[in-house]
């Protein structure tokens, strides 16, 4: 088992417009990417669970030619709204870092 953060080149989050948040999990090595993709551990359901959402609210993609996994969720609050604490959405990825990959 490895943690996702030990396998990825970059895990990041960012606004995709003011109303959505998107996560990119990017790899350097095709074999490592395939291991994560095929592990069954990094899925729409896994992301939904980490952010307390029903899976249907998560957009989820395997991007083979970019060696990347991508997920997008509705922002918990619109960007810059009164209680929003992360205007660029840049620090919302930490819950993904310790997903265990077989």
């Amino acid at each position, binding site marked *: 088992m490895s943690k996702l953060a030990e396998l990825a080149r970059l895990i990041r989050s960012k*606004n995709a417009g*003011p109303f959505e948040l998107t996560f990119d999990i990017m790899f350097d090595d095709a074999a490592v990417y395939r291991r994560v993709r095929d592990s069954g551990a990094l899925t729409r359901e896994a992301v939904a669970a980490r*952010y307390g959402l029903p899976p249907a609210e998560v957009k989820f993609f395997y991007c083979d030619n970019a060696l990347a996994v*991508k997920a997008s969720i509705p922002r*918990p609050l619109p960007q*810059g709204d*009164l*209680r929003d604490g992360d205007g660029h959405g840049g*620090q919302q990825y930490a819950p993904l870092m310790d997903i265990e990959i077989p």
Partner: protein
Amino acid sequence: MDEIRILSPTGVMGSGFVETSFERALAHSPHFIGCDAGSTDPGPGHLGAGHAAFPRPAVKRDLRLMLIGARRLGIPLLIGSAGTAGADAHLEWTFGILREIAREESLSFRLALIHAEQDKAYLKRRLGEGRVKPLHPAPQFDERTIERAERIVGMMGAEPFLRALEAGADVVLAGRSSDTAIFAGLPMQRGFAPGLAWHAAKILECGAAAVVNRKTPDCMMAFIRDDHFIVQAPDPELRCTPQSIAAHSLYENADPFLIKECSGTIDLTASRYEAVDEHAVRVSGSRFIPADIYTVKLEGAEKVGYQSVFIGSIRDPFIIRQIDDWVTRLEGRIHARIAQVYGAALKTSDYHLHFRIYGKNGTMGPLEPVKEIRSHELCLIIEVTAPAQETASAIAGIIRHQGLHLPIPEWSGLITALACPYNPAHLDRGAVYRFCVNHVVEPDDPYEMFPMQLCSVAGDTVRECSP
């Protein structure tokens, strides 16, 4: 024409680029220069207040180099989303900078200004006709939202840029634009495949962001041909790889394969990326699916109120271990003191208090999966938003005094519970705004929301001419 060469000097005007890269790019004889000058990324305040996110001298430096370069080669310069949010105030601000440069450099050119700020009566009419549709997720949007909004802009497609060029413009300064629309129009007009034009535009709009080894914001070029395009950064030290170019479609997009534009959808599911050498990548197979109905996305900001922010920190482990309860008690005391001071003149519903506890969950709020506090100190940011700055400031003063001496059972006697790094202990933030719309309009045509003004600029004189 078997190739169109496009130069994007940087991802956002005002963020800079390297002058030697720009000169190298000009040596490739680009057919036009395009630059995105805005985004919603800095937040709703720029649209709401009519201010730009990048400093004036920084925008002027970038614009000066682009304008001189474009005039030297006699090629069009297309700028979209002027002044960050692309409303009339932002367009006017950027136009002021452009005029200053024209005067200082004795430049002459035909200029098109394209407005993107939306008339409220027009929006109400389209809303009434059922031609304003929500995206997902979308806030409530009705006539009252339109009336409350400080500014609403439409995000223009490629067509208004092309109309400006057809009217003879050398320089197009446009309000809010789809980032890609700045770059995609001309290649399509010259007969290149829409799929390639839009995909190249998607990469270009971020400048050199798609390279492997990004050093600073810098120039990017695309060479669109019959059945493929090549992307390459003019700085020979910057490398593009098939992976870096493919990965760029992930950035700030909810969907990495399908990207919605006014006139259709960019479809990257069949895109192929191949290395030309260690600097350049060949892209092919990208498609564009025309939409049945042309749509224009709206962005709007409304004023929420005026804000003051108190900042203080806590080091006492007794307070830290009961922080949630302590904050609840503090909130109660603040409300009680406000009621005492203002009476019926200020109801609880007239102002908004918000507590951010850094060291606990300040960054992620309710989404924070770590529930126990592992830090030996906490930072408290307490915000108040009220109908007037004077009221927000006064309440921030109340917050400070109530927080400073709020007792805990472990100590007897007067305590001072908060460390204040600033004096005064709060900061007045002025008006604050929120995004109030995530909808599209279905206009009759791509132009009705984007009126154009044509001017001829010659040094220090600007004459308006009819299109």
